[in-house]
């Protein structure tokens, strides 16, 4: 509660500084709009539905990409647990693909998959899967030995072992992988949207931002940025926190 209050005060202070800079008239209102106009643009685009529509479109893609990556990652982890050859292959693939920014793949993806949603999903999965696997493998490799021996003792293997013992045992790593994946997915999506533009009527938050620059609607641009930040705070501070309270914190497993 106290932390929340400190955060609120800090945010308020930032707003005041912003408005103060605006009042000095150092920058043209065209590129440095007042708080009032930003809030106004935010309200306007919300009411018109443009922002909400783009937001829903982007969220849907991120969630699809994230879920797809998690399912893929778990499947890979299951096979890698039983085959060391497969595991070394995946380790090699991770070391090759992990450092490659999703945007760098865009030209290739456009060549191969065109510019539809499939291409966007591909970029998201690429951005999420590798860091997710690094995190998941890291946790799976460090499972407490005695608990593994208990699982051996009761003869559970295969997918039951993964679901009942290995995944819950590596849940802190799994969760931090999903968190990293979430922020990587969100970033990858916005860059991809800016480049792809509107493919099916909606272009997402990225496309929204891009258009705001084209039309020199700076207040609208900031409104878009505010929405992105708010989503970030809601997901990190509320959604993931909620999951942690019900899992790793309840189990006494947080690191």
């Amino acid at each position, binding site marked *: 509660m106290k932390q929340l209050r400190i955060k609120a005060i800090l945010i308020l202070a930032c707003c005041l500084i912003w408005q103060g800079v605006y009042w000095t008239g150092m920058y043209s209102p065209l590129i440095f709009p007042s708080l009032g106009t930003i809030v106004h643009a935010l309200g306007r685009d919300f009411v018109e539905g443009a922002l909400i529509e783009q937001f829903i479109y982007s969220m849907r893609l991120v969630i699809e990409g994230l879920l797809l990556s998690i399912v893929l990652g778990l499947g890979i982890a299951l096979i890698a647990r039983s085959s060391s050859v497969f595991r070394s292959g995946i380790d090699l693939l991770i070391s090759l693909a992990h450092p490659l920014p999703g945007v760098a793949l865009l030209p290739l993806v456009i060549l191969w998959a065109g510019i539809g949603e499939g291409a966007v999903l591909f970029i998201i999965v690429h951005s999420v899967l590798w860091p997710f696997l690094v995190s998941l493998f890291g946790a799976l490799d460090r499972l407490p030995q*005695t*608990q593994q*021996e*208990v699982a051996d*003792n009761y003869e559970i293997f295969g997918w039951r072992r993964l679901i*009942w013992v290995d995944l819950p*045992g590596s849940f802190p790593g799994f969760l931090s992988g999903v968190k990293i994946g979430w922020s990587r997915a969100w970033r990858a999506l916005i860059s991809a949207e800016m480049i792809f533009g509107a493919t099916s009527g909606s272009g997402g938050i990225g496309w929204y931002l891009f258009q705001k620059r084209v039309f020199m609607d700076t207040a609208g641009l900031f409104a878009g940025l505010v929405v992105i930040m708010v989503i970030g705070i809601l997901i990190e501070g509320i959604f993931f926190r909620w999951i942690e309270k019900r899992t790793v914190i309840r*189990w*006494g*497993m947080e690191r």
Partner: protein
Amino acid sequence: MSGFRFESVTKTFGNEEIFRELSLQGAPASFLCVVGKSGVGKSTFLRLLGGFDQAEKGTITIGGEQVTRPQKKCPMVFQSYEQLFPWLPVWENIAFPLRVIGVDKSERRNRAMEALQAVGLEQDAKKYPHQLSGGMKQRVALARAWIAEPQLLLMDEPFGGLDMMTREVLQDLLISLWREKQWTVVFITHDLREAARLSTDLLILRENGSWEMKKNELSQPRDPYSAELNRWIREIEL
């Protein structure tokens, strides 16, 4: 109910010999206590029998079958406090072996509650392991090993972290369960009085890979403070 057998088993770590040509036999429904100084190889002995570790030479059999890997008919209570699953509440930890063999949830819960009552933790069924003390965790691990009708029960200093009172209550419980269910038990302990009270056979492990087997023919029921039991303890050299 399965007996077990070591046939000239040699185990080394690096160039340190833990046992040399260890041969012994545990009859079905016997109660073997293993004693010896710290670091002498008691846990190693139990881990070999449980299939958690392999010997360089010799064979180990349970019920006539060679041990190659851990089996659920021979559950182990480990020395470590980390043996419970932190994400499962206490009762589900205890019921875990039942879940593996497909017992349905309501029966799992009933049997876990019975087991919890036996080890005096019925108040703590819904807690998570990190909310328990070391001795409480150990009792949960005991209940988990007892619940699924073991053939051969392996216990590595299971009463190590407990006070005298709880310890004696659990010794009584273990003796009565062992009599009733006819388990074969291998039990490691630091406490000779405990070994004297529980065992039918005693294995003394010594440094440099040597060992000695001894029968325990003290009369039943055994008073842990009787002169007869004290005399028996005094004869043991670690």
